[in-house]
């Protein structure tokens, strides 16, 4: 008898564990599907983003959400595979979710732009907006631009311009080292173009492409860079390719400054370590010391609250701008209909939480916002990942200086 009860309990329990750890769903929310790698060796990107987004969304919801409803994030693990991202897209459109968000990987972004475009034209009853929060290949808002795609991060050419503008006057020799794929190649091309345009006095003494994620020892590259006499190394590398490169450079003790695009994201500070004091710079949309530097108390308090709660940096606080745009556009559209929201987003202007003017440009759906260059050094108010060193803002490039022309020829759906 006892056995039978136990057995029945086991059956119920097994059924129950299917629901285990499923997303907390609530009625009457505006859902945002979010897809990035959440498992496997590169899970940290998606995981860190998700936590920061959740914190921001809780704040946005406490400020009223949109249309009297709360926003709700629905995560989908895409394992860095475009096919899995497309399956997530199908799942989102099945549930009539109005937004799909994706941050990591231009290959997945390219797949999503195409797929969202086709889906919306073939299934007008379940349209969806693609919110790009970090896939930065320049072409995505140029040749490949789409009405349904809104990019909230600066693209490679904009970041390259930021870098070229922030390069100190005394620097005359730079070395480029990038990963050998679409993203790295466009960093290489755009940085060279902007250096030629803005800093004709700077000489590119070396220009290197490395296979993505294959190099385990960067010491030979450092030797080569040393021999070239470069003062600055510019790299778009991310992940191990960036960590190992900077580490090898610092270990060899050569006098070199590193200009990067991704040294500030989760794990970067720990990997660089105290040896990188004053040597590493990163192009970023936000760092935790911006608010105290410009004296914005409210923003400082808000980012500090995140710090107290989580063991990593709040590097993606800039995502707040994304959700504020979605909130404002949804309210303006007066409904959760993706077409109306997309039209409301076009040309929308917004003052971000740091107090800078931003605009979602109508021509190519590219957000034009301020951008910072940070230096990794000692003696900042908020250090990074408990290393004692943190990011201090070295240069601020305002939105109006980043208005690059676009080659986008957008086809808009009939209203």
């Amino acid at each position: 008898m006892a056995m039978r009860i136990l057995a029945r309990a086991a059956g119920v329990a097994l059924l129950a564990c299917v629901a285990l750890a499923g997303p907390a769903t609530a009625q009457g929310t505006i859902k945002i599907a979010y897809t990035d790698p959440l498992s496997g060796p590169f899970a940290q990107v998606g995981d860190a983003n998700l936590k920061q987004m959740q914190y921001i969304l809780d704040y946005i919801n406490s400020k009223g959400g949109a249309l009297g409803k709360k926003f709700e994030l629905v995560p989908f693990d895409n394992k860095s595979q475009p096919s899995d991202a497309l399956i997530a897209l199908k799942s989102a459109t099945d549930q009539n979710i109005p937004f799909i968000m994706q941050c990591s990987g231009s290959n997945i972004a390219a797949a999503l732009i195409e797929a969202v475009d086709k889906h919306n034209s073939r299934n007008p009853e379940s349209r969806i907006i693609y919110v790009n929060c970090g896939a930065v290949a320049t072409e995505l808002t140029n040749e490949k631009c789409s009405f349904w795609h809104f990019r909230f991060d600066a693209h490679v050419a904009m970041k390259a311009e930021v870098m070229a503008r922030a390069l100190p006057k005394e620097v005359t020799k730079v070395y480029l080292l990038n990963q050998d794929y679409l993203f790295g190649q466009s960093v290489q091309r755009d940085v060279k173009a902007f250096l030629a345009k803005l800093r004709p006095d700077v000489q590119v003494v070396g220009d290197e492409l490395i296979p993505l994620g294959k190099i385990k020892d960067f010491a030979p590259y450092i030797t080569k860079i040393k021999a070239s006499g470069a003062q600055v190394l510019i790299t778009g590398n991310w992940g191990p390719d960036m960590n190992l490169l900077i580490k090898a450079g610092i270990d060899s003790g050569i006098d070199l400054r590193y200009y990067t695009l991704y040294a500030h994201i989760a794990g970067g500070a720990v990997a660089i370590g105290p040896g990188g004091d004053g040597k590493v710079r990163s192009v970023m949309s936000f760092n935790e010391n911006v608010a105290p530097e410009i004296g914005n108390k409210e923003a400082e308090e808000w980012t500090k609250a995140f710090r107290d709660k989580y063991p990593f940096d709040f590097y993606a606080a800039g995502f707040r701008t994304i959700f504020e745009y979605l909130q404002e556009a949804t309210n303006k559209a007066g409904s959760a209909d993706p077409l109306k929201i997309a039209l409301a987003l076009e040309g929308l202007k917004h003052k971000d939480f740091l107090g800078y003017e931003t605009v979602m440009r109508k021509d190519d759906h590219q957000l034009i916002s301020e951008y910072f260059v940070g230096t990794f050094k000692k003696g900042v108010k908020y250090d990074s990942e408990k290393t004692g060193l943190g990011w201090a803002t070295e240069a601020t490039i305002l939105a109006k200086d980043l208005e690059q022309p676009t080659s986008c020829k957008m086809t808009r759906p009939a209203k």
Partner: protein
Amino acid sequence: MEVFLVSLLNGLVYGMLLFMLASGLTLILSMMGVLNFAHASAYMLGAYFAFTISQYIGFWPALVLAPLLCGTIGAAIEMYGLRRVHRNGHIAELLFTFGLALIIEKVVQMTWGLIPVPYRIPAGLDFPLFTVYGTQFPAYRAFMLLISALMFGAIWLGLTRTRIGLVIQAALHHPEMVGALGHNVPRVFTTVFAAGTALAGLAGVIGGNYHVTEPAMAFTMGPIVFVVVVFGGLGSLTGCFIASLLMGLIQTFAVVLDYSVADLLKWFGFTVTSATPFHEVLTVPLPRIGALLPYVLLVLILVFRPRGLMGTRDT
């Protein structure tokens, strides 16, 4: 000359690190025939163990304890897992280690978190040893060279001068015969697997702070180790040693030599322009593909000499 000397040193250090990883695998692969996909996971575990231990009792105890811990885990895996799977064939063993690699990765993520841990070079070794033409040579690199050289020596002596080493060598070639002579072959297998795992763990202790200790470190280190082992040839520690150094040096020097096939063709009077078929492939400079050369060499040597550089039998 300057570049040459520095590159030579770099190549040596990298090659020796590869050897530390590969030596364990070459023992396991040549003796047990197991394509051990969890080998790089042991490397990762070694680094994480060393990180945790060094937080409490310092780096030097970790240098001994972390590999021992890895070795114990290895022994347990062999005794309770692999031995059972062994009779189901090599593919089953391979998948078993593959499953293990997945589990270890997730366990590491759950224990130490997703972002890198601050596992640093011990302060006592964190100084430049000497300067070659303005480039510092960190003392830690010399330490790595020393440890791996000691390791090579120890394995060599252990295999050739001790009784168990001779039995292992014999079991490498004729396991049935060794069993028939009354030796406990399963125990020899356990010893070899534990020793191989411990060596990978040691490589993790040394390499973890030289590189970056993070959950992806096993994933990125995996394939290249297989290349070294197979290229060096099964059953030959010397082959493995030479292959490691060769791979280290090739990758280092490929970075320095800025030539492409197009340059080579120019010697013979052909000029490659953008109109030439496959010009995209022909104009790739050597540094761009340096890291891929080991795979090219792997395919070539297996096609023409399947036993590898110094292997005692066909792969």
